[in-house]
C-alpha cells in the first residue's frame, strides 16, 4: 500500500565513529536532539516513538528515550538486524499515515565496538557449529559464485569500494573521509580477508546514532513552509520465501531474490519504477553486494551490473548514483542506526542540501537494507 500523507519533519545523526567514552543512550540523545531541533519541536510534540538497536540487551531503548524526556509517549523497540533503522522508520511513517500519530519518531543507536569487546561469545568465538563463519566469508561465497557465473573480477568489487570511499570524502558525516583519492589498486592491495574480498571492500565496525521525525504532510507544510517537503511513499518489508536449495544453518546472505521481490513490491506500491529514481542507497557491507543490487533493484538486467559500474553510472555525476554518502563502507555501519543514516542522506539530497555531493535536481530516492540474511526492506522517497 502506498504511504499517503506522511512527510519527514526532521533528521539528525551523530557521525559514525568509535566513541569509547560515550554511552549508546547519550549518542541516541544527541541524534534525537538534532532531529527535534531540525523539526523545530521538543519531545512534547512527539506522539509515538520507535527505538531500534541490535545490541543484545533488554529495554535499553526505553532507557535511551528517557534521556530526551519523560512525556508518557508510547515507545516500541525494533530489532531486525542490519535493517533495524529502516524498519523503525517504516513503523513511524505508518503510525503517521494511519492517522494514529500526528508526529512520530524513529531513532536508533548501537555500539559495535562494545559488542566486539564485551561479547567474545559472539561471531567467530562461539563454540557452535554455525559460528565458524565470518560475515566476510558468506559475502565472499556470493562474490565467488558471481565471478564463476559472470566473469566478474576483483577489480569490479574494488572499483565499487573505491567509489564509496571517495563519496565518503565529500560527506562531513562519513566515518571514513580519505584525504586522497582512493584507487582500485589501493583497495586490492589491502589485507585479503576472505577471497576475493579485501579489508577495504568491507564496512568498518563503529558506534553511532541517528533519528528521523515523521509528521503528517499537513503538519510539515504548516510548520516548515520554506522547506522542500520529502515524503516516504512506499516501504516494503519481506522475510525469506522458501525455495529448493535453501540454506538454513549458519550466517548466510539469504536468498538474493528477496531484494528483487521486495523492490518490486515497493515500486508497485508507489506506482514508480527504477527509472524514476535519482539516487539509491543500498546495503554495501561488502562491495560485491552493491554490484548484485544494481540488478536486483532493477537498475539493469542480470549480468549487466559490471557495465553499469564501468560506465560510471553509479558514481556521483552518473545516471543513478549509489551510496552518495559513502555507504556502509565509508559512512559506516553501527547496526541499528544505519537505516536512519540512509534516511538522513536521502532527505538531505531531496532537500537539495547535500553540498559537494549533491545529486542535481534529485526528486526521488531509494533506501535498501537486508538484515541477518533473513529480511529485506526497500523504501522510496519523493519530493515535489
Amino acid at each position, binding site marked *: 500500500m502506498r504511504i499517503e500523507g506522511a512527510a519527514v519533519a526532521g533528521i539528525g545523526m551523530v557521525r559514525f565513529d568509535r566513541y569509547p567514552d560515550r554511552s549508546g543512550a547519550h549518542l541516541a540523545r544527541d541524534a534525537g536532539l538534532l532531529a527535534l531541533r531540525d523539526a523545530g519541536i521538543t519531545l512534547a510534540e512527539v506522539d509515538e516513538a520507535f527505538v531500534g538497536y541490535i545490541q543484545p540487551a533488554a529495554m535499553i531503548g526505553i532507557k535511551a528515550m528517557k534521556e530526551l524526556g519523560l512525556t508518557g509517549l508510547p515507545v516500541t523497540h525494533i530489532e531486525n538486524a542490519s535493517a533495524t533503522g529502516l524498519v523503525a522508520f517504516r513503523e513511524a511513517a505508518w503510525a503517521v499515515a494511519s492517522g494514529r500519530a500526528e508526529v512520530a519518531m524513529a531513532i536508533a543507536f548501537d555500539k559495535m565496538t562494545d559488542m566486539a569487546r564485551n561479547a*567474545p561469545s559472539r*561471531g*567467530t*568465538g562461539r*563454540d*557452535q*557449529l554455525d*559460528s*565458524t*563463519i*565470518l560475515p*566476510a*566469508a*558468506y559475502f*565472499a*561465497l*556470493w*562474490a*565467488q*559464485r558471481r565471478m*564463476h557465473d559472470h566473469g566478474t573480477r576483483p577489480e569490479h568489487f574494488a572499483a565499487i569500494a573505491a567509489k564509496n570511499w571517495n563519496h565518503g570524502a565529500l560527506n562531513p558525516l562519513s566515518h571514513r573521509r580519505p584525504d586522497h583519492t582512493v584507487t582500485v589498486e589501493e583497495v586490492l592491495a589491502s*589485507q*585479503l*580477508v*576472505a*577471497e576475493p*574480498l579485501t579489508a577495504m571492500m568491507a564496512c568498518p565496525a563503529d558506534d553511532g546514532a541517528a533519528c528521523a521525525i515523521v509528521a503528517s504532510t499537513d503538519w510539515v507544510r504548516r510548520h516548515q513552509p520554506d522547506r522542500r517537503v520529502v515524503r516516504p511513499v512506499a516501504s516494503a518489508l519481506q522475510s525469506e520465501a*522458501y525455495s*529448493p*536449495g*535453501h*540454506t*538454513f*544453518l*549458519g550466517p*548466510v546472505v539469504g536468498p538474493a531474490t528477496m531484494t528483487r521481490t521486495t523492490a518490486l513490491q515497493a515500486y508497485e506500491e508507489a506506482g514508480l519504477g527504477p527509472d524514476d529514481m535519482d539516487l539509491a542507497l543500498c546495503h554495501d557491507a561488502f562491495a560485491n553486494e552493491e554490484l548484485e543490487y544494481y540488478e536486483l533493484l532493477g537498475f539493469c538486467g542480470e549480468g549487466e551490473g559490471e557495465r553499469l559500474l564501468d560506465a560510471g553510472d553509479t558514481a556521483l555525476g552518473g545516471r543513478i548514483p549509489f551510496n552518495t554518502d559513502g555507504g556502509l563502507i565509508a559512512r559506516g555501519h553501527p547496526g541499528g542506526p544505519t537505516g536512519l543514516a540512509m534516511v538522513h542522506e536521502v532527505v538531505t539530497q531531496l532537500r537539495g542540501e547535500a553540498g559537494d555531493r549533491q545529486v542535481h535536481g534529485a526528486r526521488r530516492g531509494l533506501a535498501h537494507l537486508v538484515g541477518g540474511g533473513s529480511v529485506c526492506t526497500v523504501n522510496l522517497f519523493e519530493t515535489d
Partner: protein
Amino acid sequence: MARVAIEEGYFTVPDDPAEAPRLLGSRCGACGEHFFPRRQVCARCLHDGCDDVELGPTGRLWTWTYVHVPLFAKKNAKVSAYGVGQVDLPEGPRVQALLVGGPDDFEIGMEMVLDLETLRTDDDGNDVVIMRFSPHRAAGAHEGGERP
C-alpha cells in the same frame, strides 16, 4: 578415546573413524522435500510432520571462499586460515560448512564428501569434532567412479 560432536543434532559421529559421517536432516511426510538441519514443519508445504533422515555424505560444491582469519578467533583451534563452502546435497539442501584444503584445491561444481575434524580434547578426554567437506579425491581420480 571417544569422539563427540561440537554441537549435538547436526551430524553422526560413527564409532569407526574410517566411516563417513552423515548429516542429520528431515524429509517431509507429505511432499517429500528434504531439509538440513532437522525441522518439524515442512518449509515447502507447511505440513506438520517431517521424519528424521540421514543425508549425504557427498554433494557438489556450489561456491567457496578461503578465509585469512583464525578459526574460532584462535580460541580452541590452531587454524590460521580456512576454507568455507556451500555444498548442494543430492537430496536438495544446500549446506554451508568448513572445507578441507587450500585455496587452490577448490573448484565450483566438484564433488565433495563430508568428514570430521578434531578441534581439541575436552575435560573428559574426548575428541571434540566438527563436520567439514573435502574434495572427493576418489571421484576426482576416476570420473563416475565408486562412491561410499
